[in-house]
């Protein structure tokens, strides 16, 4: 049956990894922020800006990795802005995040329009090329899947593993988790939850931006407005689905990407019968379902969204 045949194609699984990459970065970024106790709703805007600045840097002549670095740096700056408002001033994390999303997206479009005046088709750059890993590429099926992946995808997986190590096997990770669970307790044991939160929001936002940069430096090769298409919000839902664990975030992103990749291919099969919009809705509806399923079960970091003010007990 054709529906099952799709699952057997290496092309599908290669697409899964590609589609998952920005989700992995975005989810990990949001996860890090939330583990420290801060909900970062600026993700959609930061991903958009990351996509733009990464592309623009390369368009101006830099190499691809410099583009990624530029995106990371830009993300950190937005993270600093977010943290300054929500951690230092204790402003509403919801509203600040939304404001940053709107601000970052609009600045991204503005700067892009300045650099690239309206033309017929948006200009392109040379994106990341797939990497062939010598030993792995000879494995049947899996080899062809892995050989069509670009460097950022490998980086995404490595980042997930690194973050898992960081959070659960290092003293810094423990300090981060404690800051997100009970900042007063953290402070009582000599950890500074304020600095931890600021640092995590900055690095997390950097990761989000890198996720956006993947879209323009690898998946597509140009930037156009609304290209992030709500992936940021999906990542926020995935963090809950992953119970704030990087390993599960990786799994969740892949699972989600599987649905997305499958639905894309399904369109070519069923396209005449079922309107394509229904397929496109799947990712968003799934995210909502994931949230509902995990709502009662997830162990939310207890200090999430509670501003920490020193000296008040």
């Amino acid at each position, binding site marked *: 049956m054709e529906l099952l045949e799709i699952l057997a194609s290496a092309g599908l699984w290669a697409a899964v990894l590609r589609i998952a990459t920005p989700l992995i970065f975005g989810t990990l970024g949001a996860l890090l922020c939330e583990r420290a106790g801060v909900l970062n709703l600026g993700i959609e805007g930061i991903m958009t800006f990351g996509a733009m600045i990464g592309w623009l840097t390369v368009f101006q002549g830099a190499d691809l990795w410099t583009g990624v670095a530029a995106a990371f740096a830009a993300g950190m700056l937005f993270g600093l802005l977010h943290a300054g408002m929500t951690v230092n001033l204790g402003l509403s994390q919801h509203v600040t995040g939304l404001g940053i999303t709107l601000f970052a997206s609009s600045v991204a479009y503005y700067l892009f329009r300045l650099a690239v005046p309206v033309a017929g088709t948006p200009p392109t750059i040379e994106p990341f090329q797939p990497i062939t890993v010598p030993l792995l590429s000879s494995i049947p099926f899996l080899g062809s899947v892995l050989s069509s992946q670009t460097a950022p995808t490998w980086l995404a997986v490595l980042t997930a593993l690194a973050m898992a190590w960081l959070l659960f096997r*290092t*003293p*810094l990770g*423990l*300090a981060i*988790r*404690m800051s997100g669970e009970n900042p007063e307790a953290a402070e*009582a*044991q000599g*950890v500074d939850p304020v600095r931890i939160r600021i640092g995590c929001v900055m690095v997390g936002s950097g990761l989000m931006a890198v996720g956006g940069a993947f879209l323009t430096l690898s998946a597509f090769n140009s930037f156009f407005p609304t290209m992030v298409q709500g992936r940021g919000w999906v990542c926020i839902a995935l963090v809950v689905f992953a119970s704030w664990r990087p390993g599960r975030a990786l799994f969740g992103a892949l699972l989600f990407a599987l649905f997305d990749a499958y639905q894309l291919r399904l369109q070519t099969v069923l396209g005449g019968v079922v309107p394509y919009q229904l397929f496109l809705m799947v990712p968003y509806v799934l995210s909502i379902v994931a949230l509902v399923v995990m709502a009662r079960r997830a162990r939310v970091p207890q200090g999430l969204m509670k501003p920490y003010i020193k000296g008040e007990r």
Partner: protein
Amino acid sequence: MQRTPAGSAVPALELSGITKRFGDTLANDDISLSLARGEVLALLGENGAGKTTLMSILFGHYTPDAGSVRVNGHALPPGRPRAAIAAGVGMVHQHFSLAANLSVLENVMTGTESLWSWRSARADARRRLADIAVRFGLQVDADALVADLSVGERQRVEILKALYNDADILILDEPTAVLTDQEAERLFATLRDMREQGLSIVFISHKLDQVLAAADRITVIRGGRVVAERRAAATDKAELAELMVGRTIERPVRAPSRPGATVLQARGIGIERLLHDIDFALRAGELLGIIGVSGNGQSALGQLLCGVRRADAGTLTLFDAPFPQGDVDALVSLGVGRVPEDRGSDGAIGDMSVWENAILERAGQSPFQRGGFVQAKAARRHAAELIQRFDVRGGGPDHRIQLLSGGNIQKLILGRSLHAEPRLLIAAQPTRGLDEGAIAAVHERLLEARANGAAVLLISEDLDEVMRLSDRIQAIVKGRLSDPIDTEQADARTLGLMIAGASIADASKEGATHAV
């Protein structure tokens, strides 16, 4: 980090002239005390006396306005828990400083390693924790999630945290408040062990029995000041109870009561894990006082009677009909006045004005509402009446209520219920956190309601207050109520025994022997 050898003359801990203000309240007033090496010192005082503030200053959670702290002879920089920990001070907080979602080992290890290490030395930490646990008899599963531990086990983790950090001065804040009797026994055995091993201990408590059994010396704190110091061997419960509780300001005196019909009756009331088999009966014109230390089920009882909670078992009758559980509107229309325990979150909405707070629970009734529209003029007038009649100071009807002091907010809360001439008044911890003047005002109103024929139920942790105001008293301990005692037949000693954890049967027996 220098530690003074045992037996040295330098005191382990020395607090001099500690003073701390929070807004209008003077929590610590020029307090000085010292702790010798290998000594167990008890800080005794009622809730709100300033003990926790003092120890928080010691541990670096707060910075004192004046005064200094010396640990083993060296000055301790204020306001930094890290410095206190490095100096060997460990604190076991009353409300545990633990992350429920993390394991025991993780809670203990937080902050103990350099943040720049590549990996946590978990195996070493686990071993060290096990050693300490064995040494002091505090067994806990290192990998268990704190959320899954019992209260006693969580306390063990708190203590382990302090010991893990090489504390040789241990502060315990109300350590037995939430423990069963057996767990408390175990704890004191542990403390004795620790003393043998050279630790110096301060523990804060108001349980006279335990204080006398476990401490070498006792410092009594009242109203933010040290009022007495005694060697445990040289004093007794009676003296301590009086020292703890003495008051000087004139409080209103209760006239004899003439109780009428039964207004509120409870039989076998239970709320899962919090209240068990509660029986009481309250008559019109009578004030029943329920005395107990916080955390013994009073909050749940108060919530039940204020209509914000339902019981899981038993029957509750009001004016001879079933009590409308969970139905605030019905209670208010039946003429029940309610003063909640948590003034800040339940009693008032800080950002709303005085008049809005004054009428909110009656907002659906005329004259405050007509055709869906709030009659602000009538509401403001009502608020002005309340302000005048109940001496509410600090703001007019249009001011945000959070501008008023706690005492004035409480007067308004009380006033809005009393103005409607309730037939039943539920007052939960009505004088908590108030200054003397406000307390006297609240007491006067409660007695006034009683004199006007209302049935008044007072839930309080203030022994003196309960004795002055109540006609009859019942003690609440671990979710159970003792049999009622007539206040005439009770005294501080009996009641102190009841609430300090002596078994209810014993306490009632003692009360009964006095009642003869």
